[in-house]
C-alpha cells in the first residue's frame, strides 16, 4: 500500500494566555486525537483524502475548544460569521463559504459547492440558503456561542472603550 498521511491544526497563539484549565487542555488534545482518528478511518480503508480532511474538520467544528463551528469567535456585533474551504489536489476542484451564520458544519457547505462544480465560493446569506437548499443541517446562531467566547468579546470591547486594546492579550484578541 502506498503511504497515507494526515495532519490537523486547531489554531495557534500565545498558549500561556488562553486561561484554559488542565482539564480543558486535555479535552482539547483528546478532540484533536478524535479528529485524527475520524480522518484516518477514511484513509486506512482506501478512501479519498478529500473525505478524510472533511471528516477531521467536522470533529473540530463540533468541539467547543476550537475557533470554528461550535466555539467560534464572535465578531464586533456579537455575531458569528464563519468561513470554510475545501480543496481536492487531484482535480483542483474547490469550494468555499464565507460569513455564514447558520450552517452547523460550514465545511460541508464548502464540500457541496466543490461537488456542484459550477461555483467556487458563496458568501453571507446566499451561502446559508444554499446549504439549506442542499439539505445541510441548519442551526440557530447561538448554537456556535460558548461562554468563553462571550467573555472574551466583552473583555475586548472593554479594552476598546478604555483605549487599551493594544495591550489585550493574544487570547483576548483571538480567543
Amino acid at each position, binding site marked *: 500500500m502506498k503511504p497515507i498521511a494526515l495532519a490537523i491544526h486547531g489554531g495557534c497563539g500565545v498558549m500561556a494566555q488562553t486561561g484554559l484549565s488542565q482539564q480543558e487542555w486535555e479535552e482539547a488534545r483528546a478532540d484533536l486525537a478524535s479528529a485524527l482518528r475520524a480522518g484516518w478511518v477514511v484513509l486506512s480503508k482506501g478512501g479519498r*483524502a*478529500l473525505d478524510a480532511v472533511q471528516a477531521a474538520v467536522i470533529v473540530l467544528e463540533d468541539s467547543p475548544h476550537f475557533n470554528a463551528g461550535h466555539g467560534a*469567535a464572535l465578531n464586533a456585533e456579537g455575531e458569528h460569521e464563519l468561513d470554510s474551504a475545501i480543496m481536492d489536489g487531484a482535480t483542483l476542484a474547490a469550494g468555499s463559504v464565507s460569513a455564514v451564520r447558520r450552517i452547523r458544519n460550514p465545511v460541508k457547505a464548502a464540500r457541496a459547492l466543490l461537488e456542484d462544480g459550477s461555483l467556487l465560493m458563496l458568501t453571507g446569506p446566499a451561502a446559508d440558503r444554499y446549504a439549506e437548499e442542499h439539505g445541510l443541517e441548519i442551526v440557530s446562531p447561538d448554537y456556535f456561542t460558548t461562554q468563553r467566547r462571550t467573555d472574551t468579546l466583552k473583555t475586548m470591547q472593554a479594552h476598546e472603550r478604555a483605549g487599551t486594546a493594544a495591550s489585550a492579550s493574544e487570547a483576548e484578541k483571538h480567543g
Partner: protein
Amino acid sequence: TVGAVALDSAGHLAAATSTGGYTNKPAGRVGDSPIIGAGTYARDGACAVSGTGQGEFFIRHVVGHEIASRIDYLDESLEHAAGKLIHLDLARYNIGAGLVAVDAKGNIAAPFNTDGMFRGWITPDGDLSVASHREVFFVERL
C-alpha cells in the same frame, strides 16, 4: 481556526480549513481560510496546506500556493518551504502564524511562530501524536 491536510493511498492530496475568524472582528471581514491558494490549498504532486493566523497576511503572500510553487518549481522540501513562509516571509509582520502541510510522499510539516499551536498528525506508519505547546504527545499506533 481548524484545518486538515491528507495524502491518500491513490497519491491524492486534499486540504480543508474552517474558522470563526477572530474575536471582535468587523462584521463582513473575510480572512484567508476560504481563499483558495491562501489559507487552503492542495495540488497533487506538490502539497496540501491549511493555515492559521492573521489572514490578511496569508492572503497577501498566497501562502498555500506559494509553498506548493516552491516545492514544484524550486524543488524545495516541504519542511523548508513551509518553514520559510512562517519563519521568514511572515516574520517581518510580527503576527501569529502557523500551518499544517503534507506533501506527495507523506512528509508532514507543522511550523508556527507562536509559543503553541493545537496540532496533530498520523504518520504513514500509523503513529498518532497531538500537541498544543512544544511538547508532542504520542497517543497510539493505529
